[in-house]
């Protein structure tokens, strides 16, 4: 019996907890991407760098607060700095919308043109982030490190395996739940949210019923930039802030949004967790897990790892391609580009 418990704790420690945290981060990112797609109807390659920019603003605000001696006890100061980061990312997105995207929207340019323009925006944002904060790793996490420590857990339960829950992981989940509830409340209950869904569903009909397209686009950018910042900050707290990693996050986020059905918020959340758990489960070495469950002497020799950790991208990508080929609308019936 203890063996089974040990195996379960081991699995929770290395797969379940990190998977949930990573899934929440991907889900938030995918939600923002899907909002841009639903309202503005283009694939935003610059999204990863928007995340980096928002996270960077938050890092600066955190440093400023830390220098001023303002903290919020066991919670990371970054939580307090988050609004400043969101404002920064929103301003950047609105600036690019006014100077770049609005022109093509008025022209009714094809989505490909938007995509290429977003490559230019990506270059500029990337350059800005590196100009301002530099390309190196930045730590900005503070407050309590762990909610449950492996050693305490072992002493408490008497099991051989420990379970560690970092406070950033719990925080990620809590923030994600709050943000998602707020977003769904906004989309389903407020006038603006309904207008946005109407606009996304049928632009002409929405315009005919007097919805102001400029305001819809404005709010779409605000929400997308806000979600990007929250996702970027949570990822940065969990791992560390490095501009380059945000570009690499773009692929799993795209995969999450498309697998769930692009333009569909519920799908984005489901897609985020699906991609995260696939990545973690496929690249986890099950040797110790199986040696608890298998009878004595049957323990596996190898690592029992399906794919080496370096092929994380490949997992999200393979899922993406399989879904695109067999169910192009995604799991939750999004749109077909």
């Amino acid at each position, binding site marked *: 019996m203890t063996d089974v418990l040990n195996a379960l704790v081991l699995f929770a420690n290395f797969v379940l907890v990190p998977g949930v945290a990573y899934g929440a981060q991907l889900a938030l990112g995918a939600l923002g991407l899907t909002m841009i797609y639903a309202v503005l109807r283009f694939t935003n390659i610059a999204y990863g760098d928007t995340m980096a920019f928002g996270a960077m603003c938050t890092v600066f605000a955190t440093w400023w607060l830390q220098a001023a001696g303002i903290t919020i006890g066991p919670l990371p100061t970054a939580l307090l700095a988050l609004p400043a980061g969101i404002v920064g990312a929103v301003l950047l997105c609105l600036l690019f919308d006014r100077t770049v995207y609005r022109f093509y929207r008025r022209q009714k340019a094809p989505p490909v043109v938007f995509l290429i323009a977003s490559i*230019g925006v990506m270059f500029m944002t990337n350059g800005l982030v590196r100009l301002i904060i530099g390309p190196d790793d930045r730590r900005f996490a503070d407050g309590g490190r762990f909610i449950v420590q492996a050693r305490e857990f072992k002493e408490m339960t008497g099991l051989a395996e420990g379970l560690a829950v970092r406070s950033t992981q719990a925080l990620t989940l809590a923030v994600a739940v709050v943000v998602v509830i707020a977003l769904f409340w906004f989309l389903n209950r407020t006038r603006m949210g309904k207008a946005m869904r109407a606009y996304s569903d049928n632009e002409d009909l929405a315009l005919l019923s007097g919805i102001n397209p400029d305001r819809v686009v404005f709010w779409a950018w605000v929400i997308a930039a806000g979600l990007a910042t929250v996702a970027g900050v949570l990822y940065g707290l969990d791992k560390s802030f490095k501009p380059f990693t945000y570009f690499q996050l773009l692929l799993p986020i795209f995969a999450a949004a*498309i697998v769930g059905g692009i333009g569909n918020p519920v799908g984005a959340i489901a897609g985020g967790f699906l991609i995260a758990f696939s990545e973690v489960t496929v690249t986890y070495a099950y040797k110790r897990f199986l040696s608890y469950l298998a009878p004595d002497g049957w323990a596996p020799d190898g690592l029992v790892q399906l794919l080496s950790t370096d092929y994380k991208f490949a997992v999200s990508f393979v899922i993406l391609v399989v879904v695109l080929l067999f169910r192009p609308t995604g799991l939750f019936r999004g749109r077909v580009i």
Partner: protein
Amino acid sequence: MIRNGLLFAAMAAALILVGLFQSWNVALAILNLQLISAVMALGTNMQWGYAGLINVGIMGFAAVGGIAAVLVSMPPVPEAWRAGGAGVLLAGLALAATVAVTVLARSRLEGRAKMLATLLVVAVGYFVIRRFYDPAVDAIEAVDSARTGYLGGLGLPILLGWLAGGVAAAGVAWVIGKVALGLRSDYLAIATLGISEIIIAILKNEDWLSRGVKNVTGLPRPVPYEVQLQREAWFQDLAARWGQQPELFSGVTVKALYAVLFLIVLLAVYALAQRALASPWGRMMRAIRDNRDAAAAMGKNVKRRHLQVFVLGSAVVGIGGAMLTTLDGQFTPGSYQPLRYTFLIWVMVIVGGSGNNTGSILGAFVVWFVWVEAEPAGILLMEAVSAVLPRGSALSAQLMDAAPHLRLFLMGLILLVVLRFSPRGLIPEPRR
């Protein structure tokens, strides 16, 4: 025509200015990468400009070309072959067999049986492959891992590697195209972006093939080494007659020789690309790009043509990638970054003029020039700014550190300005 000539003349003048004011070594180094970038831009232009396919995976094909050059030119490692060659070959056979059986099963069966059979074959195949593959890879990587630890290449001249780079990239493109070309434009962009990351991940981690992040260095060269030249009597005479230091002059000579080789390849690819674009095939491609439904209604097989042009364009990019690895003299999978190898090439094509081969070459020249020269220019600018600031202030130190990143910002700005005010590029596609 005159305008194009003037644009290229201005580019040449800029390079000559660099030669006079910085050094000829720098000017030739820029020229060499301009020529390579131009080849890659031509390949990208075939896909995007001719056929309207968005391939955001240029980096992957360039890397495939690079590894092909390595595998052709490096000497083989016999001990590694003895240790694990058979195992890797068997694993390859098992992979081929798995794919073949899967395809066969999928074509013969229907419904639920099809699904089950696919899963079963893939699962069994996976374990069979791992059975051969894992011990073989361990054995190969254990062979003198500080210096080799991989199978090595064929030991052939590296110029053959350029051809092999094209062929290898074409092969990879065929497989990718078969899977991904059915996707609509935006999805294709995301798919190719992902595939290029996977290709780099494979090259970084499959040490038995590419030595991974340990890099392959000391590739054979198609041109003599500087030290060889410096020892030759005739070369010393030539340097003396031109009033040059033999050491500096040998560097310039080697770079110039590379430039000649690259120029030959560029002109050959350009000539072929121009002929293709002007031929009925090129007309068909443009018809498919501008209205694929109408072209399909005229009986053109859109999917096949897309696959064809995707393979051709990728092959050209692969040749460029092989040339790049040759010029570097080493293969470093860790140095492949999408900003530099994918998106920069895209900026070249868009700035030069989508659909116009001459434009792509000019775009490659201009954009690479700006990319390189933005760094010294950025430092100059930052120096001017920090001259106003108090000496040794933290801000001025930060500004100097940041100067190299200015070029990313500049690239984005150039792309957006061109896209907005001259969307057809510096040399627009002629209206036919």
